[in-house]
């Protein structure tokens, strides 16, 4: 990050300079989780599988898709999530612009009492760190392997299987654990 301006902290500096994120929900029972596709290619395959995994745990989900990963989410999507959901999972950032924009979206929703997690690839973990520091927000992320675009669908679904529980712990302090039925195989496939 190139520094544009330097300010001084007006607080007593008893806490981190990053604003704390919303606490994870105590339970997801009766709650609805927004699954926000940030608009980057292949993210939908990851989210499709994640949706199955969450639904199998009895977690209600609501799907959203940004028109582009290169801008922050449209206000309509943000408002719909605020009005209809209790937490948000956004995926899958594997580039600089999507990491930056999705982190802003995470921050915006957090400011409206929606705890969330950003799923990013390991190559952009540092970009996520820089962005959240720039906006002063202790946002949460789950880091998955990089790259994404040359993976098979099975590999992407495997990532969802592998990181689902970690994702849930970011938005819920006591998330339901995996079920045997889902762990055994993929009940859904596209065409």
């Amino acid at each position, binding site marked *: *990050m*190139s520094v544009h301006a*330097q*300010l*001084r902290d007006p607080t*007593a500096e008893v806490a981190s300079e990053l604003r704390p994120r919303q606490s994870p929900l105590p339970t997801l029972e009766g709650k609805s989780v927004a699954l926000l596709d940030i608009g980057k290619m292949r993210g939908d395959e990851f989210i499709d599988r994640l949706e199955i995994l969450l639904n199998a745990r009895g977690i209600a989900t609501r799907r959203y898709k940004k028109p582009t990963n290169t801008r922050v989410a449209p206000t309509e999507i943000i408002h719909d999530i605020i009005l209809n959901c209790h937490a948000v999972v956004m995926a899958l950032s594997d580039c600089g612009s999507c990491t930056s924009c999705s982190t802003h979206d995470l921050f915006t929703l957090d400011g409206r009492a929606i705890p969330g997690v950003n799923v990013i690839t390991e190559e952009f973990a540092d970009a996520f760190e820089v962005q959240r520091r720039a906006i002063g927000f202790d946002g949460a992320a789950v880091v998955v392997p990089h790259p994404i675009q040359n993976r098979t669908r099975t590999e992407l679904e495997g990532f969802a299987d592998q990181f689902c529980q970690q994702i849930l712990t970011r938005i819920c302090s006591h998330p339901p654990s995996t079920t045997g039925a889902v762990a055994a195989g993929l009940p859904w496939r596209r065409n």
Partner: protein
Amino acid sequence: MIGSDTPADGLAVFVKKDCPTCRLIQPVIRDLSQRAGSMIVFAQDDVSAVEGIAVIDDTSLEQSFRQGIEAVPTMIRFANGREVERTFGWNRDEWQRVTGLADLGRGLPQMQPGCGSRSREPGVFEHLVARYGDPGLASRKINIGEWDDPIEAGFERGWSDGLPLVPPTDERILRMLGGTIRNPDEIVGRVPPNLAPCTVEKVAINAVMAGCKPEYLPVVLGALEAALEPIATMHGLLCTTCSGSPILVVNGPIARAIGMNSGINALGQGNRANATIGRALQLIIRNVGGGRPGELSRSTLGGPHKYTFCFAEDESDAEWTPLSVARGLTRGTNAVTLFQGDGIQAFIDQRSRSAPELARSLAMSLLAVGHPKLCEFTNAMLVLSPEHYGIFRDAGWDRVRIEAELHKAMLRPGKDLIQGAQGVGEGISPGRAEELVNKFWPEGLLIVRAGGKAGLFSAICGGWTGGRFRDQSQPVTREIRL
């Protein structure tokens, strides 16, 4: 310290083109360039400042700052990397002494004063300190990215009261600190609810964000000191579920000096000093103390006065005893009074013609403070407008008389006020049924004069319920240290 561009041995001359003296001595500088050996000329505004020789561009003012240039022209002689001589303005004897050369500036006047250095122009010096020097600030640096907006950063970090903040950059903080002679690291006190130590520097940072000018800083410091006196109970006032908040009244010549409003719309918007001094105190409590609404600041409803509520008393009538004087300070002392109160309740009376009539009328409205049946439960501030005050003044009533008459007019039989009386559960203790009960304790009614000349309207600010602990929570008046 010598900058990298100044000579280890030789002369450095600082000029600016728009300085008449610098233009006058152009022949001298050209002469020196031939005779003086090593010499570097720095121009603060234009490298064509001295025709015919190479001039170093110092429009950034870095070298001027590093060499502590206060006037132009300035000539410095260095030897072995250290400054050994300096002169400024044009004085032939001095220039000849410093250069060791005779016969300088033939045909020029013997002497001519120079001009101020650009590096010392208002507002510039603090920029240069921030850029090239050591600002001496202890607070944590917060870097804002190239594509991020510093105004938004204030919101994002939770520093804002909901309105935009002036970004607290080093140059603004340094300028603000220029408003006081107190050291930046002096601890003013511990700010509730976190009881975090607050330095003068933190006060300055929050004053910057609030939009204060440096000349307001002593008032902000005075207000904070008032708030931190234990009897002010700022801790409870911040965390209360009631709507109370600090109301600041400024007395003394400083109010006029810094342009505070005590006239038309004194309690309202539009005056920078009124608006930002009150806001600065609130921001200090929010940011240093950690008093954020919804966390430990728990007012059920709050009120717009919790953004800011600060005004000056109208002291234009020499016969009137100002609030600060009534509270023990001498007339003419700069002072701030912190009253724990709510927003205003308008008092309308366009019919009363005599002082007794107006007192009875005011008493009726004052009785409604908090709840009509609650007594000695809160304090109150009455902001008396000029037209209402005029009725009292014409009758020869001074502050003491007005207060006494108001208290007298508010006496009521306890039987009408006890809990359950008049079919209303709220009220005073049933044990007081046989007493004549006053609405406020004698010291619990504060009268202040303010407002525009026209309008038979005054204002009542109900006090915070913490005031019911008579000996534990009281308004505070404090002298402002300049």
